[in-house]
């Protein structure tokens, strides 16, 4: 039996989008964040959710949004989570860090900080994250550098920054950080920019080779790779949605993953249902656990990836039973079967 089939009583980690509020308006934002929603969870509700997650021994919470540091109670909530021994990863745009934030992050083994930067130069980054953001982000990274903080710079790989990955790795290294790269997926505002920013097959293959050659590059996709095999061969890893991970949105709704925040895939809301009940019994979560695209079943790598990322398949084709359209094995077949003219 594959590890992915070993049922878990709770996620290993989960993404918690703590607010929809964001001071930037990145064209690839997975959640389309901008302003705070009226019914976002308050501190007491968040604390009660943390109590549930701690009782279930969820090991790690990854905070995103929106910009989590804009949430007024974010640091007190973080401190509360740490009293429970839960590891946290804070994904920030780096533009609203202050002395209190840096102090909260420093010397804390339960904190991992990930600052988003989408280009090694203002010309590239600012086309994605907005005018003037490159320098603002760098000013945010500087106070974190050299401190006792687990720091990474995260880049969503797009056709605009693809040629700058080497520079981004060096830039991260100059701040004592590691480069983490994430897949660009067509959810949220990225649906509008997908055609312009997605990588072509040659770029994806090159990216896969680059990652295979450099184990020091972190990848969002294999963050919880259970076999370590995801980075070898042709890149795609198994989807952990509803098996090892899930996502809580700012209003308490629970989804299979941060990229699948679509009402039809909502497992339930924590204001009405316990986390355990949603995880164990929701129809959406049960469906995702048995999802295996028909077209992939004969593939020799099926056991490794089970069809890849359903979010990409869904947003591109509106069909969860399709293979991940960025599967490099499919492309190899297409390429090798294309007659050379």
């Amino acid at each position, binding site marked *: 039996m594959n590890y992915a089939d*070993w*049922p*878990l*009583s709770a996620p290993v980690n989960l993404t918690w989008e703590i607010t929809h509020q964001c001071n930037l308006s990145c064209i690839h934002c997975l959640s389309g964040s901008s302003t705070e929603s009226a019914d976002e969870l308050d501190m007491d509700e968040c604390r009660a959710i943390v109590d549930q997650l701690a009782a279930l*021994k969820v*090991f790690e919470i990854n905070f995103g949004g929106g910009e989590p540091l804009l949430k007024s109670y974010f640091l007190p909530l973080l401190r509360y989570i740490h009293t429970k021994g839960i590891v946290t990863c804070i994904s920030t745009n780096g533009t609203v860090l202050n002395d209190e934030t840096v102090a909260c992050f420093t010397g804390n*083994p339960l904190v991992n900080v990930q600052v988003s930067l989408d280009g090694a130069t203002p010309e590239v980054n600012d086309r994605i994250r907005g005018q003037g953001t490159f320098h603002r982000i760098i000013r945010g990274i500087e106070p974190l550098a050299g401190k006792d903080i687990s720091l990474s710079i995260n880049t969503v790989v797009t056709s605009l920054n693809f040629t700058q990955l080497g520079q981004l790795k060096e830039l991260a290294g100059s701040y004592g950080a590691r480069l983490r790269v994430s897949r660009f997926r067509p959810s949220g505002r990225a649906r509008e920019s997908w055609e312009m920013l997605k990588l072509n097959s040659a770029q994806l293959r090159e990216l896969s080779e680059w990652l295979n050659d450099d184990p020091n590059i972190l990848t969002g996709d294999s*963050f919880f790779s*259970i076999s370590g095999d995801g980075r070898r061969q042709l890149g795609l890893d198994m989807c952990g949605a509803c098996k090892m991970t899930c996502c809580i949105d700012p209003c308490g709704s629970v989804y299979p993953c941060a990229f699948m925040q679509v009402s039809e895939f909502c497992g339930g809301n924590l204001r009405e249902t316990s986390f355990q009940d949603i995880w164990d019994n929701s129809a959406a979560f049960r469906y995702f656990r048995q999802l295996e695209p028909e077209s992939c079943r004969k593939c020799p790598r099926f056991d490794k990836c089970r069809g890849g990322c359903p979010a990409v398949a869904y947003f591109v084709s509106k069909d969860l039973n399709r293979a991940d359209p960025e599967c490099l094995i499919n492309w190899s077949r297409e390429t090798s079967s294309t007659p050379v003219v």
Partner: protein
Amino acid sequence: MVYSLAEGIQVRKESWGLLFYQQLQHKVCFVRSGDWLYPRHFDGSWTFDGIIGDIARHTGTPAEIIERSIQKLTKHLTDSRMIVDELR
């Protein structure tokens, strides 16, 4: 000899055994130990013989059989730095 979780390691019980989590690498380790082992066995208070006796008591399995399996398992967990052993 007693066993404790190594630094930065957490563990929880699952229906099929134990799930170890390594904080630094953000990795997990699946241990198919069924209902033999529990997280308490790695709290630093259980000796090897104590663990064997505890499993034998709650499963009814002969101690010699348990001993062979647990020896292999604790070695694997020690080698993969999930647990540390300490002489008492």
